[in-house]
């Protein structure tokens, strides 16, 4: 069991791939914003991919372990010590009953950190997932981000200390403050919805991450597009309007003039055009982009994206 001594800025229980299968009724998958770091953390404690862990945003909670545990920290590095030593990142860590894991704010690049626990966090499933969706008050720990005093149960799995020590040093993702993110044109691009100049601008711009960015979406500050149409026709007044359609996770949606990358807690249906969509293997970078970081999109084909995804999956398998 883990006792929450201090909840941190925004710490939630998440699992991978989250609450999938309900997009058609408007229930988002939730799950980790950086699925890559989350999955690595799970592998470091010899968990299956689907076991629930914690997503920590920027400021760490203080957690007291009320039983022995095998844990792993991954994602954005937070400064801190455990038993007088620097807390190791990206490797298996054994903690004894009574240990308090207390870390500071995020140091350097990256925005979200992940804590996996051997056996996984034990909260009830809601619609097949343990992921928290706080907007609707379900999933995770009683439907909300962790709060001081919460007691988190851990599943019993393989006995502790029988989980082998592992390190992800060989496959560490590169964290930046200026991110290059692979994206595929569409579903709406030039010449029907945007001008060729807009499209060129989109891929050449260093977009600045707006402070009002979260698990629903990442707002980007930059130039305004001209749009190819004068208005949205029967879809609405603004040229960014179209008849409502379902959004892909990671799509770069223009709500009016401002692009928003729709992420794991975002809406499923809406009536705004999307110029490009972040590729599956690069979506983790959005989860690690912090407010005021920069994002530049790199145009990829589907074939290139699938090749990258395949390589990433192979790397992950090498940790298994």
């Amino acid at each position, binding site marked *: 069991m883990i006792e929450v001594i201090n909840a941190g800025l925004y710490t939630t229980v998440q699992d991978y791939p989250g609450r*999938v*299968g309900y*997009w*058609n*009724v*408007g*229930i*988002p998958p939730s799950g980790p914003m950086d699925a890559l770091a989350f999955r690595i953390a799970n592998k470091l404690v010899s968990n299956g991919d689907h076991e629930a862990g914690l997503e920590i945003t920027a400021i760490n909670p203080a957690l007291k372990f009320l039983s022995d545990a095998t844990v792993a920290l991954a994602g954005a590095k937070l400064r801190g010590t455990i038993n007088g030593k620097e807390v190791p990142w990206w490797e298996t860590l054994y903690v004894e009953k009574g240990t308090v894991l207390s870390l500071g704010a995020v140091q350097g690049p990256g925005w979200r950190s992940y804590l996996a626990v051997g056996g996984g966090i034990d909260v009830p499933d*809601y*619609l097949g997932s343990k992921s928290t969706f706080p*907007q*609707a*008050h*379900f999933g995770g720990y009683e439907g909300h981000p962790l709060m001081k005093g919460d007691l988190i149960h851990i599943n019993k799995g393989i006995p502790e200390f029988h989980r082998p020590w592992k390190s992800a040093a060989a496959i560490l993702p590169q964290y930046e403050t200026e991110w290059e993110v692979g*994206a*595929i*044109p*569409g*579903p*709406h*691009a*030039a*010449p*029907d919805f945007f001008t060729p100049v807009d499209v060129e601008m989109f891929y050449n711009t260093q977009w600045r991450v707006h402070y009002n960015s979260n698990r629903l979406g990442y707002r980007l500050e930059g130039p305004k597009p001209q749009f190819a149409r004068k208005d949205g*026709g*029967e*879809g*609405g*007044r603004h040229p960014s309007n*179209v*008849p*409502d*359609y*379902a*959004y*892909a*996770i*990671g*799509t770069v949606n223009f709500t009016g003039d401002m692009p928003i990358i729709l992420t794991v807690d975002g*809406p*499923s*249906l*809406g*009536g705004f055009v*999307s110029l*490009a*969509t*972040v*590729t*599956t293997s690069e979506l983790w970078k959005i989860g690690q982009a912090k407010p005021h970081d920069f994002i530049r999109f790199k145009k990829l*084909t*589907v*074939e*290139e*994206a*699938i*090749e990258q*995804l*395949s390589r990433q*999956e192979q790397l992950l398998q090498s940790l298994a």
Partner: protein
Amino acid sequence: MGKLGSRRRLHVRAKRGCSDAIAAIIQERSGQPKVVYRLAGDAYLLVEYGEMTLDLDLRFRVHSLEQSIKSIPVEGVLETVPGVRSLLIKYNGLQLPLSRLLDTLKAIEKSLPPIQEVEVPSRVIHLPIAFHDRWTLEAIAKYIQSVRAEAPYLPDNVQFVARCNGLESIEQVITYLQATQHLVIGLGDVYLGAPCAVPLDPRYRLVVPKYNPARIYTPEGGVGIGGSYICIYPMESPGGYQLVGRTLSIWNTWQTAPAFAEAPWLLRLFDRIQFESTSEDELLNAREAMLSGSYTLRIEEETFSVKEYKKFLDSVRDEAETFKARQKRAAKQWTKGY
């Protein structure tokens, strides 16, 4: 190899003069709408039908495609999500390459029935609604206080709906909203089974622009109009539709009421919502009774036939045109400088 392949594909696209966001196009042919296969990343494809108009025919085409994909089923396809004129297909690109998915979809397209022959199960759901109620008026008051003090739709959204549609009074808006059934063509707009519903009778199809900027607060059960869609808010949330009333809960997380025995969401695609005016007190009673299980929702199981609907549309064509013209004149006047 992937690179060579993609370069060749780009070349083909350039020759056709279409965007690199489009994977393929099937042109319109006798009785079959145009199909555009739009890329939505490496895990989704957006199949879009017809032209950019609110044509219900296209929604039924989307349904036929979705049914067909489900009945085969196509290996590697993970989820499908319908929109107004499009279907989002989520697939596993490692298992099902885009080219093969496209071939499969094109083959399916040939086998789809003519739209006129489509019939779908459709329940008529009678929902009590308190029009112009204290809860939505309170939400508007909060908006005026904290977001925007003056706008064409303030301080009374229903009044704005009346003006924009050339109606004389709030009472007339209330009459119009009960004079037609509203067909649910999308779920989850926005979140948790929220219906995107269109008025079936064009003589009563109210159209109104949305808020700008959006509200921070909307009561759960609030009913709004945005464009020509009706929405019911499943939870307290931000929102942009013009609020006209409040109805029952359409989402129940723990499925504590019999109406939610099958799922936490109440509505299904192609349900027809029939609003029935009630007082605020009666609504409160109904909402409580629904939770305790003592309220029985009136539901009729029927089918919806595209052919029959066409016949109906033909029979009211002139009246619908008259209303549309009046509506257009009013909208011009009342949404000026919006």
